[in-house]
């Protein structure tokens, strides 16, 4: 036996043994957080995957495949109208930034080859906050109020920050890259209206399937709630018809995917989840086996699922262990959180935005982390501050931004983001 080769294995063995021997399973501090973490994971798996995340992946995939990016980029080009460019830059993250890794190249491109510093910065700031998946998940898990505040805050402040950057560096003439931006050519298969109805039907399914039970048992919200599956079904039928009429799927395929859904909803009227799962399986089968654009749609949706689910669920496990579910304590004591980001003081907001700006959040993990923090006593103002500063910036992406903008502009941008996020947190906390 050669010790040279085997000693590492022995060390690992001893390490694992000691770890097991001293495993603190009976202690309160250990069992609590682990339990919390698993309970939170189960809650996510039950409440959010089938009705919310899966449809959201299909929508994100559809945006990536069917929405013409060239049409949007036209408004961010070098000779675009400056005022329109700011507006488009602030909202186009919804369409262009479905995946966070595309934000930086687009930002650099708008800066060097397109509309310039202001719109580029506006895009960089709002992009990660208003991509479809982020909006849907924030609204669903952290509540409508915070979801809306995040989207509106990101759009408004991105324009403000863009204009300020432009104003600070107005005297500077940028040496434009010689190269003309290469924008993929896309042939248009459907009109804008057709695409709009198509997306509307998917968003309709998502919204109504997730319609929460309101507190009282009367009024408009309750009426909508009691008819939610009927409304969802109408959207689903429209959606299925469009797949045949505009996307060239064979009618018998769509019908054979829809039939089990109808049957299951008749057999199990009290458990709409079963029919919904059948619908997802049906849609995946007919799109996944297609070799044309609907096949591309499926593989793009699946790509998002592959990329985001592992990150999101590790985020849930970690957030659950550290912070616990709302109303329960995790590894980090609640009073630490109340002390640093509770209430709505300037200090709490500033701390939240600065921490958010430097910390790296993998795509969408900011949502479970925020949920944990809110449950442990974080104020809603600082929560918004963190949501605004967090995904837009992190230490690694600051380095990339620095290589594009230079050190001074990057520092100005980072400070503007922190200041703006703090202000929006303060305002939101007062509401």
């Amino acid at each position, binding site marked *: 036996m050669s010790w040279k080769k085997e000693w590492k294995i022995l060390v690992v063995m001893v390490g694992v043994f000691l770890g097991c021997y001293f495993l603190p399973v009976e202690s309160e501090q250990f069992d609590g957080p682990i339990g919390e973490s698993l309970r939170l994971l189960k809650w996510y798996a039950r409440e959010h995957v089938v009705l919310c995340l899966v449809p959201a992946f299909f929508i994100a995939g559809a945006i990536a495949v069917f929405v013409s990016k060239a049409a949007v980029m036209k408004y961010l080009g070098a000779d675009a109208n400056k005022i329109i460019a700011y507006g488009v830059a602030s909202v186009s993250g919804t369409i262009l930034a479905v995946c966070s*890794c595309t934000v930086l190249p687009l930002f650099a491109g708008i800066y060097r080859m397109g509309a310039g510093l202001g719109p580029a910065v506006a895009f960089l700031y709002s992009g990660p906050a208003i991509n479809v998946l982020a909006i849907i998940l924030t609204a669903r898990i952290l509540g409508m109020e915070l979801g809306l505040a995040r989207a509106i805050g990101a759009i408004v402040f991105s324009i403000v920050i863009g204009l300020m950057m432009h104003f600070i560096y107005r005297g500077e003439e940028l040496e434009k*890259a010689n190269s003309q931006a290469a924008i993929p050519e896309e042939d248009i298969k459907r009109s804008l209206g057709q695409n709009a109805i198509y997306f509307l039907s998917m968003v309709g399914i998502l919204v109504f399937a997730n319609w929460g039970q309101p507190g009282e048992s009367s009024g408009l919200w309750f009426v909508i709630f009691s008819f939610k599956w009927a409304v969802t079904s109408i959207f689903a039928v429209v959606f299925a018809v469009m797949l045949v009429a505009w996307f060239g799927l064979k009618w018998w395929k769509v019908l054979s995917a829809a039939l089990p859904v109808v049957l299951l909803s008749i057999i199990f009227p009290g458990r709409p989840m079963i029919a919904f799962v059948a619908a997802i399986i049906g849609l995946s089968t007919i799109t996944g086996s297609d070799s044309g654009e609907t096949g591309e749609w499926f593989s793009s949706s699946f790509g998002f699922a592959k990329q985001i689910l592992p990150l999101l669920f590790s985020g849930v496990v970690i957030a659950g262990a550290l912070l616990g579910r709302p109303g329960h304590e995790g590894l980090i004591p609640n009073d630490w959180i109340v002390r640093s980001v509770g209430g709505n003081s300037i200090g709490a907001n500033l701390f939240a935005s600065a921490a958010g700006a430097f910390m790296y959040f993998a795509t969408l993990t900011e949502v479970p982390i925020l949920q944990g923090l809110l449950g442990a006593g974080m104020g809603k103002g600082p929560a918004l501050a963190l949501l605004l500063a967090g995904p837009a910036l992190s230490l690694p992406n600051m380095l990339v931004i620095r*290589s594009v903008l230079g050190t001074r502009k990057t520092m100005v941008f980072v400070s503007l983001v922190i200041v703006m996020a703090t202000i929006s947190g303060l305002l939101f906390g007062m509401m």
Partner: protein
Amino acid sequence: MSKLQILGTGCPKCKAMAENVETAAKELGIEYELEKVTDINEIMKFGVMMTPALAVDGEVKIVGKVPSPEEIKKMLS
């Protein structure tokens, strides 16, 4: 000998692109040199804003999506 450059900051799609390009090039049996351009300023010099992108001998062939090995074969031949 063709020079194949994959432009992208290292996201999963860029990796998928690299794999497809290698498959296509091997199936065609051409001699090639594969380079991954990850620096964002270098990517900009190609005029590419949407990654991943593929350049063959310095000429950008496709931008913003991952082509299948079949599509890449057409670009290479």
